[in-house]
């Protein structure tokens, strides 16, 4: 029997040498005249251990990592022999960092072959769709509503209500749109899941289509994710061949198909109305709401536009029941959240867990602090538009409302860790500058405010009428918060104001700082 070895093809693993490792293993096997079967999976999300290689054994999969190409020969010897190797991590499922998670959405990511529909089905795939077909559209919407699922893109709007609005709106054509324009720094869950378990997204979107009566779906993926685009296109082709997409979805009378569209480097296209404009082939200019996309969305038709992680949560909810999902979580945040630990962090990666875990547990306990070994000074939660939290707020539980109560947001679940060398005035300035680069230009507070904000912070650091300019920044932030059309201008004040509030010492004029 040949050895069955799993090597990730996830972009994050490839970036640290997974392709070279796979190649070296093949070479080493050929040199020994040995037949091996290398399966290219997604990543389990333990990025400090990537490339993490697994071996199938009678007792389950055994993991090794981080592996380099130079380790291939000795690793293969160990696999053939006793299994002992300095890089051995033990049974993959028993790795504590993985074991303490609650993987509902990411259960199969890093486990299955993302190019194999059979593997997906063998791991429980399409059970959600089967149940959805027997339940019928109204009951599917009710099930999603009962699960308490809220939009995972950041806004946290109840998914079931969105679906019901589209289902109740009569139209000759309806669309399903998946927002996979994951532009927030510190987030990579969409990329990881599309590369590691793309059929899950296809199934989730198909269930949505059945529920609201749509026959066409689009996935808008950013151009920075070529591996994800390739993985999803391959999966869509396989689903078509197997009859899971096309004229008769899963043997039913419903027609549904999905097309991948690639963005072109505009951050604002992650905003849903801007994304719709971009899909229609126009500049990604934000639309005023109302009308809601649920009433008039893509090409003016009722449209379910959800974040990729929202669709990916759907198959579990349908397969296992709304209650099973809703039993996880706290308050009005039900189910699990795939949290992404990033930046200057020792144990960075994807940590899916029920809402309610505290920020401190995530950063210190799960993340293990910084990889530089220096003290954690600030963490930014929720991407470039999220607030900076100091250690003093590390007791905040991961929950939409708890973060809002502390002038922050959980966004798409990204946490970027900074050590004590960070200059928070520079980070605040970057927030304004980034907004200025990426503003679509439709509304004045965002278009002009972002540029003026960066200039004003420069004046503060130059010691020009500091108190006046600090007051001006706060005033400007309030204008942007209340007067912007979308979250880009509306949320840029979060990183700025949180930096000012929690780290005022960094905003002293540079001459004074230098003198201290």
């Amino acid at each position, binding site marked *: 029997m040949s050895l069955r070895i799993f090597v990730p093809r996830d*972009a*994050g693993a*490839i*970036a*640290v040498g997974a392709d070279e490792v796979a190649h070296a293993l093949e070479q080493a096997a050929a040199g020994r005249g040995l037949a091996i079967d290398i399966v290219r999976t997604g990543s389990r999300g333990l*990025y*400090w251990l*990537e490339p993490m290689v697994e071996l199938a054994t009678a007792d389950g999969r055994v993991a090794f990592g981080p592996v380099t190409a130079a380790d291939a020969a000795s690793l293969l010897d160990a696999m053939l022999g006793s299994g002992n190797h300095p890089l051995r991590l033990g049974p993959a499922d028993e790795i504590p960092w993985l074991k303490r998670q609650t993987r509902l959405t990411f259960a199969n990511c890093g486990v299955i072959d993302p190019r194999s529909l059979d593997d997906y089905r063998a791991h429980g795939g399409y059970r959600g769709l089967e149940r959805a077909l027997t339940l019928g559209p109204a009951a599917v919407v009710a099930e999603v509503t009962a699960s308490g699922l809220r939009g995972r893109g950041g806004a946290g709007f109840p998914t079931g209500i969105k679906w019901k609005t589209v289902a109740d709106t009569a139209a000759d054509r309806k669309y399903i749109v998946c927002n996979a324009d*994951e*532009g*927030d*720094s*510190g*987030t*990579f869950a*969409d*990329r990881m899941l599309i590369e590691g378990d793309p059929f899950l997204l296809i199934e989730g979107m198909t269930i949505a289509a059945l529920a609201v009566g749509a026959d066409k779906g689009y996935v808008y993926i950013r*151009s*920075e*994710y*070529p591996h994800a685009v390739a993985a999803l296109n391959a999966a869509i082709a396989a689903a078509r061949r197997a009859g899971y997409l096309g004229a008769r979805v899963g043997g039913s009378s419903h027609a549904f198909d999905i097309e991948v*569209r*690639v*963005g*072109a*480097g*505009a*951050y604002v296209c992650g905003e849903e109305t801007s994304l719709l404009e*971009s*899909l*229609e*082939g*126009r*500049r*990604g200019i934000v639309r005023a709401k109302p009308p809601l996309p649920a009433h008039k969305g893509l*090409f003016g038709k009722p449209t379910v536009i959800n974040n990729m992680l929202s669709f990916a949560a759907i198959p579990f909810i349908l397969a296992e029941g709304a209650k099973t999902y809703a039993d996880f979580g706290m308050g009005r945040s039900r189910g699990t959240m795939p949290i*992404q*630990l*990033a*930046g*200057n*962090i020792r144990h*960075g*990666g*994807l940590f899916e867990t029920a809402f309610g875990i505290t920020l401190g547990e995530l950063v210190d306990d799960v993340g293990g602090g910084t*990889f530089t070994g220096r003290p954690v000074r600030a963490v*930014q939660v929720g*991407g*470039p538009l999220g607030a900076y939290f100091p250690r003093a707020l590390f007791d905040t539980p991961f929950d939409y409302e708890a973060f809002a109560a502390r002038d922050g947001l959980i966004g798409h679940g*990204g946490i*970027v*860790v*900074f*050590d004590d060398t*960070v200059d928070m005035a520079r*980070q605040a300035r*970057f927030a304004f500058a*980034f907004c200025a680069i*990426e503003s*679509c230009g439709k509304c004045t507070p965002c278009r002009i405010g972002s540029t003026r904000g960066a200039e004003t912070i420069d004046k503060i650091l130059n010691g020009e009428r500091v108190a006046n300019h600090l007051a001006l920044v706060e005033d400007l932030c309030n204008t942007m918060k209340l007067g912007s059309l979308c979250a880009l201008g509306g949320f840029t004040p979060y990183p700025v104001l949180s930096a000012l509030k929690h780290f005022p010492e960094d905003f002293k004029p540079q001459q004074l700082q230098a003198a201290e």
Partner: protein
Amino acid sequence: MTYEPWTEARGAEIIAEHAAIEGATLVILHALQEAFGYVPEPAIPMVASALNLSRAEVYGVFTFYHDFRKEPAGKHVLKLCRAEACQAAGGEALAARAEAKLGIACGNTTADRRVTLEPIYCLGLCATAPSAMLDGRLVGRLDRDRLDALIAEAQA
């Protein structure tokens, strides 16, 4: 990376291939850039005519998105992630090093047209930051040595 030279006939062929799909503008601009390495100016009125749009509309789309190039890039394109997760992991110092070594500011091409250095706002490799991409090849856990090797490779 090698691209085809621009010809009107080839441009027309690429445009015709995608013109029938819904909301085709971005798809066509991507396809043109993939073929020619940039979006040649004469293609803009051709896209407009094929999609029954004004030239201004197509030009507006072309200039709105960071991806689309007005002119060919250098022989190699080195993109350095400049977003927060990479900033937290020392990415800014590496970007400054790359600028100094290549003698150009981010967003420019060396005089010998060998290397274009560009910022990118997030490659989604935030747990193995800082990250870079050389001609489509991803590199994580970037440090001085790895960066220097990438630059040497691009300049060779």
